[in-house]
């Protein structure tokens, strides 16, 4: 009888469906990013269009306050910076598949995924509580990101309030505990979904959901011996 090791769990998973899920997640994130970029371009396009309208008026001898031009320039500069910021996040996300397994700072990945989810129309504000200690975790960055993304989407859809908090606790040498809390009644519709459950199994992450007050805790092994088929 095979041992219930991470490697055996991975091999027993239908990798085709995992690949499909990974692609779906990649598609969701890139679609959200492209939506953000389109919004940025839409603002720049309208602002330059407005400047063109002003130019036509000026040609006809109309006078207008120069501060209008200044405001338009500032607006374009702000949107360009917003675009660079978005592309920096996209770049970080794209590179998360470079190494199938590596040592990462989970807090940095959480921060990135929170930013990526903020492009979604149903996103809520997320408060990441200070955690000074940097705890390296060896895991699959892409799968962990996918997991956090799915969990956040589930929490966003389960509350109307902008009060989701995430904190970390390191109670022992073996696990990092990531704890989500907020004014949420019930997440049974989406946690754990089959996709979430599959990733939890692969990454050997245990999860607990408590209500009143709501708490979703994930115990992330600090080192998991992952060998993912095909990569």
């Amino acid at each position, binding site marked *: 009888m095979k041992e219930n090791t991470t490697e055996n769990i991975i091999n027993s998973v239908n990798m085709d469906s995992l690949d499909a899920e990974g692609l779906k997640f990649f598609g969701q994130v890139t679609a959200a990013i*492209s939506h953000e970029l389109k919004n940025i371009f*839409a603002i720049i*396009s*309208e*602002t330059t269009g407005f400047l063109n309208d002003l130019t036509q008026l000026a040609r006809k001898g109309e006078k207008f306050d120069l501060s209008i031009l200044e405001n338009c320039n500032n607006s374009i500069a702000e949107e360009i910076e917003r675009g660079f910021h978005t592309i920096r996040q996209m770049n970080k996300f794209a590179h998360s598949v470079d190494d199938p397994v590596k040592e990462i700072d989970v807090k940095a990945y959480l921060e990135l995924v929170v930013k990526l989810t903020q492009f979604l129309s*149903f996103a809520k504000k997320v408060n990441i509580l200070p955690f000074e200690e940097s705890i390296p975790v060896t895991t699959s960055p892409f799968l962990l990101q996918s997991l956090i993304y799915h969990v956040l989407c589930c929490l966003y859809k389960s509350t109307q309030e902008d009060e989701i908090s995430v904190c970390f606790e390191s109670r022992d040498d073996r696990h990092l505990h990531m704890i989500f809390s907020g004014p949420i009644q019930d997440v049974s519709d989406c946690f754990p979904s089959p996709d979430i459950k599959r990733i939890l199994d692969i990454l050997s992450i245990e999860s607990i959901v408590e209500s009143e007050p709501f708490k979703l805790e994930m115990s992330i092994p600090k080192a998991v011996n992952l060998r993912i088929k095909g990569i």
Partner: protein
Amino acid sequence: MKVILVDDEKKFINMLAKRLKFRGFDPIVAVNGEEAIKIASETQFEVAVLDIKMPGISGLQLKRELAAGNPDLKFIFVTGHGAIDKDDDNFNPNDIYLSKPLDIEILISTMKKIVK
């Protein structure tokens, strides 16, 4: 022509309103569905230009709310998404969908066409 523009991208919607005003339209902006419903309860519009994806009430849901108060209101949807969720209960293939960034001349000709 009285037009209500609804989009959570405030800068986009304000700039679009200024450009429409230059071209003789009478636009009013709302940054979410709730605000749009309130404004529309006090003013009659001929056209509503709605973003599809917004926090709270989506553009597709908003159409139903606004149409209930003004059955003659015409709708144009604007989206930054490449694909529209055709499985959404509020999706109607006969509605008009324009993609961001907008071409203002196409928007204007579309508005004139549907109001006529």
